Each structure stands twice: as C-alpha cells, then as structure tokens.
C-alpha cells in the first residue's frame, strides 16, 4: 500500500513546477471515474482510525487526525447516495482544502492525475434527478474514457443548504 502512495507523491511533486491548471486527480467509485481539480488536493493518505461524531449526517464519518490537525472525513460513496462498502487496503482519503476548510474524502481508490483541457469538458446533460448530479460540474473526455468532473466547492458547501432545507 505504501508504495502506491509514494507513487502519487512523486506524481504530484513532479507537477509542482508546471501549472496545475487543467489537472485532475481521478478516482473510482463502482464503475464511474471521477475527477477532482488538483489545486484543491493537499495530499492522499491511507484510511486511518476515524472517531465518530454524533448527530451528524451519515456521510460524515467523523474526524481523524492528520499530523495533529483534526479534519472531518466524508465518505464520498454515502455522499453520492451509493451503498456502503467495507474499507480495504485500496481505500484512501483525499485531503482537499477549499477556502480554509479542510476535509478528507474517503474514496475506493485513487487512479491517476490527468490533464483535461477545458474544451474537452462538456456540460452535464440535464437528464435525471439523481443525488450525485448536483456535484458534477461537467464531463471530461480522456481518450475514449469519460471522467465526471466534480465541483469541489459544491461538494463541501451544499451541505449547508441541504441542512437549511431540512430544518425548514
């Protein structure tokens, strides 16, 4: 497992010099591949012990310690309304930071970092009202494969709205 993460570290380091724009970290959940803008990603770590925090939505798994910093962890599967899955040695936590808020995202496993130019990203067709749709900013094409480009901001901020709606 460790080797796997080292690989990613190197990957990211190598790209430090270049512009980070248009680069996406991709990960898989079930059959779909998702992309997160790399500028938001601070690091990728293996799954660690998570302390449950009561009275929170199911998808917030709790809090964990990242070298002394306490960060909340969100299970992306549950966030997207997918069924729960046992964590295994491929499960990782992607640590993202957006406007001073740091959150760990639990995913089944990370794949790679790919560059997707903006012109290769098409808008999401307004088809159905599935749960995960609101988080998808667009669909990126990499060769023949497609990646669902996530709106990181929404991923964290929409909770607030949802909560408000629930309260009302």
């Amino acid at each position, binding site marked *: 497992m460790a080797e796997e993460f080292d690989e990613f570290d190197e990957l990211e380091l190598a790209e430090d010099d270049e512009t980070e724009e248009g680069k996406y970290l991709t990960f898989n959940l079930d059959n779909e591949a998702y992309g997160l803008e790399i500028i938001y990603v601070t690091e990728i770590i293996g799954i660690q012990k998570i302390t449950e*925090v*009561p009275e929170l939505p199911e998808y917030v798994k709790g*809090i964990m*310690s990242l070298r002394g910093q*306490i*960060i*909340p962890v969100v299970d992306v599967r549950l966030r997207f309304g997918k069924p729960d899955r046992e964590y295994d040695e491929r499960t990782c936590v992607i640590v993202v930071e957006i406007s001073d808020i740091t*959150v760990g995202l639990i995913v089944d496993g990370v794949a790679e970092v790919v560059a997707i130019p903006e012109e290769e990203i098409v808008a999401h067709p307004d088809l159905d009202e599935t749960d995960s749709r609101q988080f998808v900013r667009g669909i990126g094409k990499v060769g023949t494969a497609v990646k669902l480009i996530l709106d990181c901001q929404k991923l964290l901020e929409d909770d607030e709205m949802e*909560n408000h709606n629930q309260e009302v």
Partner: protein
Amino acid sequence: MAEQYMNDPMQEVFIFETSQQLEQMEQSVIKTEALGSYPSDTINEIFRIMHTIKSSAAMMLINNMSVVAHTTEDMFYFMREEKPELIDVSTLSDLVFEGIDFMKMELQKIKNGAEADGNPETLIEKIKEHLKILKENNNLTNSQAVNNEPVAEKYYISSNKAAKISEPKTYQVILQFEADCGMENIRAFTVVHNLKEITDSFKSIPEDVINDPDCVETIKRDGFILQIDTPKSKDKLEAFFHTMAFIDQIEIVELDKTMEIQEEICGLLSEDTIIVPQPRESLRACVTNKEAPVSSGSQSQSMISVSVEKLDKLMNLVGEMVISEAMVTQNPDLKGLVLDNFSKSARQLKKITNELQDMVMSIRMVPLGPTFFKMNRIVRDISKKLEKEINLEILGEETEVDKNIIEQIGDPLMHIVRNSADHGIETAETRIRQGKPRAGTITLEAKNAGGEVLIIIRDDGKGLSRDGILEKALENGLVGDEAANMTDTEVFNLIFLPGFSTKEAVTEFSGRGVGMDVVAKNIEAVGGNILVESVEGQGTTITLKIPLTLAIIEGMNIRVGETCYTLPIMAIKESFIPKAQEVFRDTDQNEMIMIRGQCYPIMRLKEHYKVKTGATEIEDGILIMLEGETKTTCLFADELLGEQQVVVKTLPKYIQRMKKIDGLAGCTLLGDGNISLILDVNGLIAQKRLKN
C-alpha cells in the same frame, strides 16, 4: 519612494506603536479631565506623542493623520510654552478625543488594507479655532510661541528654507537609541526625516540608513552621527531631538566652520577636537527627567511584542509535544519492560514538558486592565452627551485571562457598560428625587473563581423592569401565554434574545436592540455564560462567567464503545460501579439511581449519542456523577481510562458549520494518537432536560 517604504513590517510597527501611543494619550486625557486641569507633564506627554505620530505618519505618507497630529501638537506647543491659565478642559478634551478617534479610524482603515482617506479639514478648523480662543482668553494673541512649521506642509519635501535668520552654525550630534527599541535604521530615518523640517543642510553617518544592511549594527555601536548646519541654538536643537521617540542619549557639539565631518567613522572618532565637552552623566540625567513622566520607559525595554499568531502556533506546538511525550512514555512497546534509566529520563521529560506548557500558557495570559480602562472613555462620552453623572469604578483589573478571550469579550463588555450608562443610570435630578446619590456608579469587577473568571458589571441605576420586559417581549412575539409563569431570571434573560430592546428611543450609544444578543453570542463562543440579576429601582448586576483558558483542561477520559470522550475533571463529583438493583425507572422509562438517599437521573451516553458499540448492562459499566450548574446527573460509560491534561481543539469548521452538536465542547488528541471528544457537562445536562 512610496512603494519602497509602504512594506508590511514597517506598517505593522507603525500601526502598533501609534495605537499604543493613542491609547496612552487617551488614558492620560481621561485622568486629566477628572483633575479639571492640565498639568504640565500631561501637556508634555501629549505634545511628544503628537509629534511622534506626526512624523511617523508623514513618513508613512498618511497625510491626513499627520496634519491632525500637527495641529494638535501646535495647540499643545502653545500650552507648553505659554502656560495659559484659562483652559476650557472639557472642550479641549473633547477636541483631543475627536483627534484620537479620527486617527484611530484611519489606523483601522490602514489595517484593513484600505486607504486612509478621512477628511481632517473640519477637525483641524475646530482645533485652530480653539487655539485662537485659547490665545484670546489668555491675552496672548501676539505670542511668538507658534510652532514654527507651516501647517499644510508636505512632509516629504523639506521646507522652511527661508528660516535662516542668523548665521548658521555647524553642530555635530551623536544620537544613541534606546537599547531595545529595534529597527535602528528606521528610527534614524525618522530622525533624518524630521531634521529636514528644520534644515536641509546636514550629513549623517551612516549615510544611507535604509538601504545599507550593516547600518543597524553601526548605529547600535557608535550611535547615529549627524552634522547639521542650522541657525538654531544648541538648546533648541537639543529640545528638538528630545521630542523624538526612542532616543536615549544626545550629544551635541558645536563645530568649527572649517571642520568637516569625516567620511570614516574611525577617523572621526580619533579627532580630539570632537570629544564631548559636556559631562555625560548630567546629560543622561536630564534626558531621564524629561522622559520619566511620559511613559514607563524602563518597563517597556524589557518587553517585546510578539504577534498572537506566533503564540498560537507555539501553543499548538507545545500541545503536540504534550501528546508526543505521552506517546513516547506510554508506548505500548515498552509494556512489561523494566527500564530504570528510561523511566528516569522520561520523568525528566515529563517535568520539562509540563513546565514548558505552564510557561506558554502564562505568556498568553493578559490582564483585563486595558480592556477595562477602555470603558472609561465610553462612560465619559455617554455621561457628557446625556448629561448624567456617572462614576466608573474598576476593581480587580489585574486579573488575567487568555489573550483570545480578551479579544472576544471586549465588545460584549462595551455593550453592557453602554447599556448600563445609557439605560440604567438615571439623570441627576431623578436620582436625587429618589433619594440616591447624585452621581450614578458603574462598577466593573473581575475576579478568579476556580477555573473561571467572573466579570461583574454592576450599576445602581433603575434596574430592569419585569413588566416592561414582558410587555416588550409579548409585543415582539418573543414569548406567549407562558409569560405569567416565568421566573424573574427567565424574564431578564429575554433581553439577550435577538431583536429585543426596551428603550423606546434609539440613542447614539445604544437602543438598537442588536447589542445584547451579540453579547450573549460572543460570551457563549468562548464557553462562558451570562447571569442577570436586578432589583427594580436599585440597579442591575450582570455577571459574565468566562473560562480561564480555552486551551488546556484537566480531563478524565472515558470510553463508550470504541469512542473515547473527555470530561472536565472539575465537573466530576464521583464515580462508582452500580449494582443492578439500585437502578430503577419511572413511568416515562427514565432511568434513575438512589445514592445516599438522593435520587439522580442516569444518562447513557451510548443511547444519547447512538453509539453502536458499548455496554448495555448497567453492571458492565461505570456511573460518573457530574455536577452541572443547575443539576446533577449520573453519566453511564463503559470505563474510565484515566486522567490527562488535554489540549482543547475546536471541531473542524466543516462540522461546526453543519450543526452545533449539543454537549460537545470540542475534541482533543490523546497520547495514542486517537481523538477524544470533549463533553460539555452543562450542555449535556441541559439537553437531557430538554429531551424529557
């Protein structure tokens, strides 16, 4: 030039120093006003501060501040030189305060990264007007004592070139700065800058104070050496340098016209002719005499200012170290091994870590004094505006609390004091009619009580009116029919609800009804709470209970299932393993236990927080008796893990934003790297009651 000098560290120092000086000036003006006259040392102090601010503001190219300071300086220059006997203390103080407020506002703008764009014209007119009146009243209109600098001067351009009346003389001046003032090159630059006001023909060693990196050391070692051509007398020159900040010693020697300053310092120092003719001791004495009433100079020399951010980081690091120390010394790998030397070293490490922790904590502790003294000004302004007579009494200002807390309680305190002065204290006539002393009194008191600090704001005004509050609350729909059955305390607490204000008319100071709910929110944010007591006609007492520190608490770790929780030791009365037959339920299925003839409710953390794992049988766990403010409850947990000092961390923002979890005060890292949730006993008990 502007870009070069508007860099951050300098601006930071400017803002810091200027606000401190303004603060100091404000305090002395308040004191003077109480005296009813301006003693000469206060005049000197204000003059000096204004002079410093004038120069430093000009250096920072903040002209409006500089001009205001200059005009004020002129006024005090006149007062210092002519010692007028008729001074309208109250109007003068108002003007000075107005000036201070103006400058504070501009400082705030700069701090927020905006332009200092306030218009000082009206203020300057007012001050000049006052100076004129002052002169007329004292028949000194023709006085020569006008500060010989034109007011609308552009400071970065040397002016006053025409002022050469007599034959210019050449002086050599050696300035020694105060030992710990720091940034000697910038001080020197200020001197040079000021010097341009009186003369434009001078040389200095080192020459380029800003760009020469070695000059700080040079100035420290040899002093700042100036050669000045000026028609002014030596005394005038000396007086001029005395007005500047951070100068410790001044040596002035009149030079022969023919003698030129040497390029090399060593060469210069070897010249016999420039050995100081005046005895150093007397000069120093003279300097200290002048400085003494101005500020506690010797005290400030042993102090340094550190940014709070760094302290926060240090605090976090020490917190991490406490945890790491526990990780090492309680490492599971060491279990069962007999390691005498290791234990010895580990004990030493523990001792040092604890000392370090105490030290860091004490660094962060700040006395409440300055925050309290700020209230002087508020009370003064209000009493003046509303023509009430109010005394402010301050007790226990030496009480210390954590720096973060001080920041949080400044505003709430101000709101409460304002409210007391504005709504609480009656006018003098009303007070006399009611048989009270003419002047109202507001008492600000701080004291330590266990792990808490109590801040008590007491006034002897008209008190809170139960009926008035209820009427208002009904009007605003804050209460319903239950109003009649509410206790006084409950009624008084209504004033902390948003949108509540009993005062009909909105005054300049308070009455918009936004104050008190903000107060409550701020106090709760630091984990404190507010108590209101009041007797109608006799006054109101508001008590703020504030935790001593936010950072570290003595905690007891308990386990429920796989989750670890921490309880503040202060809240724990006792713990015991219950027997099944002692526990019973009432008709609502509330669990209880009888201990020594007293009945206590049982709260199962497992059920309360819906923890999936953990003991369900009462005999498999332990009961911890918790004493809250209003109630005592027994908490059921799996086991006690042990006592530990824990560093309180707030829950991540993401979670805070999502929901406020009742009963959780924060979280902490344990020695084994696990996270424990810190329970807030009062919140927990209150919530339990709510659920019932």
